[in-house]
């Protein structure tokens, strides 16, 4: 049996400033930022009071009142993205064997926002140690165990194949899609509805990143607060969002005349086995993930036309990652455009990896590389071409996208234009 190749045939995105694929791409192509002062709650007590929030109306995405009530915001975003992706793919899932359609949803922090809110209720605003079950909402178990996200997506898609949540922290968005690709390749499924979602903008999340000074305190200038690779950066901006893909096997996608955005040609993840939040400056483990992903794609580093960086905007990350690119791509690292869309849509933890896969697929589709916004002041230790401020027209057949997260996880994925790649 020849190797099964896996392609993206449908995309759904809900990102800050970009609800829907078209709005999302317009935001990136225009280099606009969607970071702002937090409006979801009063952020006054916190160190970092900025986030990239989505103006999301679940009803506008067809979610009924019961669904809105039972789902955490992250599940709602995932279902809305699923609907867009399925419609975009043109795939008639009802005509398939539902056991051959699976689901993977990535999420770093699950229903944190729902849990935070419900804890306040059952603890009488934090006063009770023995929390009161009589005030608990009926769907609290779905918040406890975030596999409920995969269940909601499976119901929305009519999937009855292998389904799960993949939760590897901030690489969840890449690892979830990578997991789905492997299920199709090995023959466990023919179609996967896969992606990720997180909606972490809640007091407990803001407080926990405050405690380690990971988020930026640039509260007086929220629109320009996310500054990956810039010499003045001082932390990331928390975001939220979801991206879901329809993934299928290449030959069946071609048979049905589907629009193919990109092939997922290679994927790998590695651990730094160093520290839960710290990174060694040499980037060796991310470099190894990149090397293995390119190897799986049977591509030489020089084939990479664009690198979609993790680019969170912490000094530690930006230097770690720059070192990883040099280590894995060699001299080519200095020639290839590298950018971070977190400068525009913030860092939505487990969701951002999938949102960045969407950006990578759209870069291939449009032959345009999105910029790194807010990059004015070079950092001598970050000396690559980070595509400052303005998007760039650039022939893009192959994209490398990477992620790095707490727990030491480092992931890399290679997307490629399948027709030009075959040629």
């Amino acid at each position, binding site marked *: 049996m020849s190797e099964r190749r896996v392609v993206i045939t449908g995309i759904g995105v809900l990102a800050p400033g970009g609800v829907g694929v078209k709005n999302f791409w317009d935001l990136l192509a225009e280099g606009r930022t969607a970071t702002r002062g937090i409006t979801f709650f009063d952020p006054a007590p916190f160190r970092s009071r900025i986030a990239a929030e989505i103006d999301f109306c679940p009803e506008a995405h067809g979610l009924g009142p019961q669904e809105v009530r039972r789902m955490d915001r992250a599940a709602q975003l995932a279902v809305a993205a699923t609907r867009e992706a399925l419609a975009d793919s043109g795939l008639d899932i009802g005509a398939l064997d539902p*056991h051959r359609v699976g689901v993977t949803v990535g999420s770093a922090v699950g229903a944190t926002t729902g849990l935070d809110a419900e804890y306040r209720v059952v603890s009488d605003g934090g006063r009770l140690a023995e929390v009161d079950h009589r005030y608990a909402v009926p769907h609290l178990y779905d918040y406890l165990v975030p596999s409920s996200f995969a269940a909601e997506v499976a119901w929305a898609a009519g999937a009855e194949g292998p389904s799960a949540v993949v939760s590897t922290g901030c690489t969840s968005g890449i690892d979830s899609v990578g997991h789905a690709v492997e299920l199709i390749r090995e023959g466990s499924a023919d179609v996967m509805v896969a992606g990720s979602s997180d909606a972490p903008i809640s007091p407990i999340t803001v407080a926990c990143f*405050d405690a380690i000074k990971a988020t930026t305190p640039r509260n007086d200038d929220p629109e320009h607060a996310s500054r990956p690779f810039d010499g003045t950066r001082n932390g990331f901006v928390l975001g939220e969002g979801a991206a879901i893909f329809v993934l299928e096997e290449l030959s069946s996608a071609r048979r049905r005349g589907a629009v193919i955005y990109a092939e997922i040609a290679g994927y790998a993840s590695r651990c730094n086995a160093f520290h839960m*939040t710290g990174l060694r400056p040499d980037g060796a483990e991310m470099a190894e993930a990149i090397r293995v992903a390119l190897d799986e794609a049977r591509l030489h580093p020089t084939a990479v036309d664009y690198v979609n960086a993790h680019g969170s905007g912490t000094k530690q990350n930006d230097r770690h990652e720059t070192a990883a690119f040099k280590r894995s791509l060699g001299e080519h690292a200095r020639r290839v455009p590298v950018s971070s869309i977190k400068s525009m849509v913030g860092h939505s933890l487990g969701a951002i990896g999938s949102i960045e896969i969407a950006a990578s697929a759209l870069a291939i589709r449009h032959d345009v590389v999105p910029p790194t916004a807010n990059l004015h002041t070079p950092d001598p230790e970050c000396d690559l071409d980070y595509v400052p401020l303005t998007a760039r027209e650039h022939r893009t057949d192959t994209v490398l996208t990477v992620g790095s997260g707490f727990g030491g996880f480092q992931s890399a994925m290679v997307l490629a234009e399948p027709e030009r790649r075959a040629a």
Partner: protein
Amino acid sequence: MTEAVVTGLGVVSPTGLGTREFWSATVEGRSAIGPVTRFDADGYPARLAGEIAGFVAEDHLPGRLIPQTDRMTRLALVAADWALDDAGIDPSQHAAFDMGVVTASTSGGFEFGQNELRKLWSQGGQYVSAYQSFAWFYAVNSGQISIRNGMKGPSGVIVSDQAGGLDALAHTRRLIRKGTPVIVSGGVDAALCPWGWVAQLASDRLSTSDDPGGAYLPFDAAATGHVPGEGGAILLVEDAASARARGVAGYGVIAGYGASFDPRPGSGREPGLRHAIESALHDARLTADQVDVVFADAAGLPELDRVEADALAAVFGPGAVPVTAPKTTTGRLGSGAAPLDLAGALLALRHGVIPPTVHVRPDPAYRIDLVTGAAREIPLRTALVVARGYGGFNSAVVVRKAEPS
């Protein structure tokens, strides 16, 4: 194709810390279910749990790890140490990129999270721990095990409620087939804290009985829910060829896996469990009559017990295969349940003993041969482990006894 063999077991069960203690309690049918002692549960409708007694993390782990870890992470780290030790693997003697970690989780470090939520809302954000950013999240066990043991290979974290423990093992086999020879796998959960208790109560699946012998009765006409517990198992899984090369046959091979998701509620379609079991058998290239024992999911609720019994009867024929649920001695352990069942199944294969399901008087309407009363001695070669997760997740794994090398 490359085979994945389990060569090490690390057990942290309410019925025993360590394989030996766990296995003797399991074979003798000693239950660990009792009144909740970890917090005052008197005011809640459910008051029984399967708690791990006598675990002193400081006896096993560096002091620097204690403030930054939830109880379930401490248990998982110790279980990983024991699994490595049991397999005879010293991680410092292996290439870092050749070792990975895949764990399942259901609710992360929920007790840690509870304490930080309490500080946030009763004292303020500046009281939230610097460790909160990772100590509670679902990936924490994979991350901490990888750091403690210097494992830099591919890793993963699966959340599919109780089915996740098997999904993690399946992903482990996938990574071994792709070329990583050593993977630490499994799951350990513990959410025995007021906040976790309230969230579990919301599932409407907990038994409200106060009788430790009558609260969790799967496949019994008197079943009214389950008792939650804490713990699980970490398994060391290896490429069978490299295990053989160092003269280790291991406990058993992960021979087959299947998974499915139930149809949308109200669809009228058949639940997915039978499909998952048949996929696992097909994957293992076994016919139903070649399976010697089934470790059941054993939900303990009539409707769910019926779905499982019907699926087993459909695949194997009514009463045609011995079925057991040793988790009646521990309660249901979230993502830890299925890895612990796998450990039990591998030990059953090794010893030729099917451990009993305790407390249960099987309802004949279920048409299964449930092993109750005493353990059943019988030669065993293959076992099927079934696990289901809240919401509709179904997973099944077939293990085959390892042949001595």
